């Protein structure tokens, strides 16, 4: 298990290196640059050159890349060109918001989707099953941004409610923090719960067909025990896989929700970085998001072993 963990982490290296090269190259290829952004309208070529030299943007790309990635390996993501602030601490603060959003969304979606998915599977072909399936389909079909705006509008007009402004960290004021996060997290949660629901349903159906369920019933187990103790545990593996993959789409989906709800998360930071062509910021953010994502995948894999004793990875 330990060896497997080490191996999985070693395998991340080429992937992360690849991502770092990709994002670096992409940032260089994007038209527009940070200098025009800073100097704005009236920049002279000399001024531009001067500034480029200041940020080391005049060096060969390979040198710039090595310099950057070398720093990253030492835990130094560099400084924002626009604000001259070190990037990593900023990413970490921003990540708290995105992580909270993602986790809340995931939890909301599980609380809704997994029980409903089970219900649909157990009562296969019933009216409840059909309703749940339609609901799941709707969940995956509504664009998140439309849902967000619609909800904002609806809640403000009908209930005079607006998601509170002024982000507060969870540890500063949990209650207020939750008030702020609940709406965006629910919207994200709804957008993924459709697929979780479908996966739960099909996974539970699959397990229900397996022999051991019959044994459990033959032992005299009640339906509740059979489903929640035995079926669910086996059904969990594909669900966990899906959820692991969804963390990725949540991190991405958060970009839009963060933008609409003005949450100071990593997605916003990346978008602002892109708009300002603040290379180190964008590179740092993307690399970090990718890192979190692959890490989540490793954790998912390790979770399998926790859920399923057959998987031991040795």
């Amino acid at each position, binding site marked *: 298990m330990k060896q497997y963990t080490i191996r999985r982490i070693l395998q991340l290296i080429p992937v992360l290196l690849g991502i770092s090269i990709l994002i670096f190259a992409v940032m260089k290829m994007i038209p527009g640059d940070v200098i025009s952004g*800073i100097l*704005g309208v009236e920049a002279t070529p000399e001024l531009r050159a001067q500034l480029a030299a200041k940020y080391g943007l005049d060096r060969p790309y390979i040198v710039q890349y090595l310099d950057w990635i070398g720093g990253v390996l030492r835990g130094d993501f560099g400084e924002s060109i626009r604000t001259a602030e070190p990037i990593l601490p900023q990413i970490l603060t*921003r990540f708290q918001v995105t992580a909270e959003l993602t986790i809340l969304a995931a939890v909301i979606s599980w609380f809704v989707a997994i029980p409903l998915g089970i219900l649909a599977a157990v009562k296969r072909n019933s009216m409840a099953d059909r309703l749940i399936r339609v609901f799941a389909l709707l969940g995956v079909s509504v664009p998140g941004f439309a849902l967000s705006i619609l909800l904002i*509008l609806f809640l403000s007009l009908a209930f005079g*409610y607006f998601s509170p402004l002024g982000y507060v960290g969870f540890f500063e004021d949990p209650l207020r923090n939750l008030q702020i996060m609940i709406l965006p997290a629910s919207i994200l949660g709804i957008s993924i719960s459709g697929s979780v629901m479908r996966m739960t349903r099909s996974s539970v159906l699959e397990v229900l067909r397996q022999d051991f369920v019959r044994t459990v019933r033959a032992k005299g187990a009640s339906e509740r025990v059979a489903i929640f103790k035995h079926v669910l545990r086996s059904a969990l593996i594909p669900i966990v896989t899906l959820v692991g993959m969804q963390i990725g789409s949540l991190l991405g989906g958060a970009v839009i929700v963060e933008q609409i709800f003005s*949450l100071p998360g990593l997605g*916003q930071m990346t978008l602002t970085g892109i708009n300002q062509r603040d290379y180190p910021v964008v590179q740092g953010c993307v690399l970090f998001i990718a890192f979190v994502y692959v890490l989540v995948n490793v954790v998912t894999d390790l979770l399998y072993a926790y859920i399923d004793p057959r998987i031991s990875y040795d």
Partner: protein
Amino acid sequence: GCGGGNTPPASSAPSAPVSTTPVEGGILKYGTDSEPTGFDPHTVSEEASLRIINQLYETLVATNADMTYYGQLAESWEIPDDVTYIFYLRKGVKFHSGREMTADDVVYSFDRVLGKTEAGDIGALGSKDSYYGGIESVEAVDDYTVKFTLKEPNAAFLGNLTSNYGAIVDKDVIAENGDLMRADGGTGPFMLGEWLPDNYVELPKFEEYWEADRVKLGGITYYLIGDEAARLAALRTGEINIANLSSTNVTAAEKESNLSVLGYQTNDYIAMGCNLSTPALQDQNVRQAMSYALDRQTLINVVFNGQAQVSTMMPPAMGHWSLGADSFDLYQFNLDKAKELMEAAGYSDSNHLSLKLAAGLMDSLRQAAVVIQQQLSEIYIDVEITNLESGEYVDIWGKMSTPEAGFDLMVVSDGAGTDPNRAISFFFGTGSSANVFGFSNERVDELCALGIATTDEAKREEYYNEAQEICVEDSTKICIASPMKYFVSSTSVQGFAPSAADASDFRDTYLTQ
């Protein structure tokens, strides 16, 4: 000249007869549409940041709603000759650090802008030349007196001083922080408080402000709410109490009893510029045809919900400086003439001209582009629109006089400023940095030189009128409309009167219960 020693006029608050008393120390919650980049008044120029910078910093002189000047940090000034300006500073003005502002700080601030401090060039500020390039020297005569000597007479000098680049800053703060992007070295009525990027900026009241009694707000908090519909929703629920809205949503806000709408004519205008490196656009007939073909009123109806005025490069808000669009035939919609000109240039139903038009993500530019495309299609021009995201937009903007840009036309939004010199020479002077479309006309350059060298208003008007006529005739930059801007606020917000000259003065603003 402009008489000195004016005290600021008592603000003419909108007449909503709300009888309730001010809430002592209320916090104004402002919904802002985009994230400020930073607060260094000498380098930053984008609107979201300026809104805040204007609360933090002050300049020697400032502009009244009627475009006259009053002393802000300077109590008064005199102009002994055409090239000498002596400012008598207000005594007892404190920086937010608590230190008193003196003449040295003024000298330092201008040294910084002009790149003469020990730290050298502050790295940004391409604007220094156009604003303060004419300054020969800035000297502290005594602690409260500063003398500016100009290289040559400059009628726009006072006007230039009112820009944020003329802000007086605290050198200690700069020494400590390197720059002012995230630090506060101002003297303004509000101080920089907590800034949570991409979320909010808090500006608490500066208790030692030199006019502290006048300021009734306890502070302003700027919340970022990027989406306009969301801003309106937040206004409705009282989550914020003031925000900028586009004219479209103002209609909705007007229907709400607890919201009031404050509109003012800006001196910004949108225009379409021609890339003169495109051969087809070197033909003046084509450019003029496009000017004729634009039905500006329709565009205003569509894009600005009717809330804008047809404008030349001197928007109507500039008052007597503006000749008004009515006086130009080229700004009257005339399809026949446009077609005639196009045909003269060799285009016809079977020979269309294809042009690439760059637009930004800003709603008004994006929408204007669509209308322009539609209208130009009537005169054998096929326009292909690309909406550029802001980083690219700025990049391409700088290249619009070369084929490198990859675009033939661009929709821009420009601020004409308060002085005709900026409106003309900044955007049309040969080689001027904002003259991105590569316009060049000797007579215009000459007129600008004349206009700046004299302080005789009548003369200046004459010069600039002529320049304006030439620019319109040339049609390299086809101006379209100058919009109204709107603040929507809760009715509890009182004592706020935005104008083109200053749309962010909250010193007299207060909240009622």
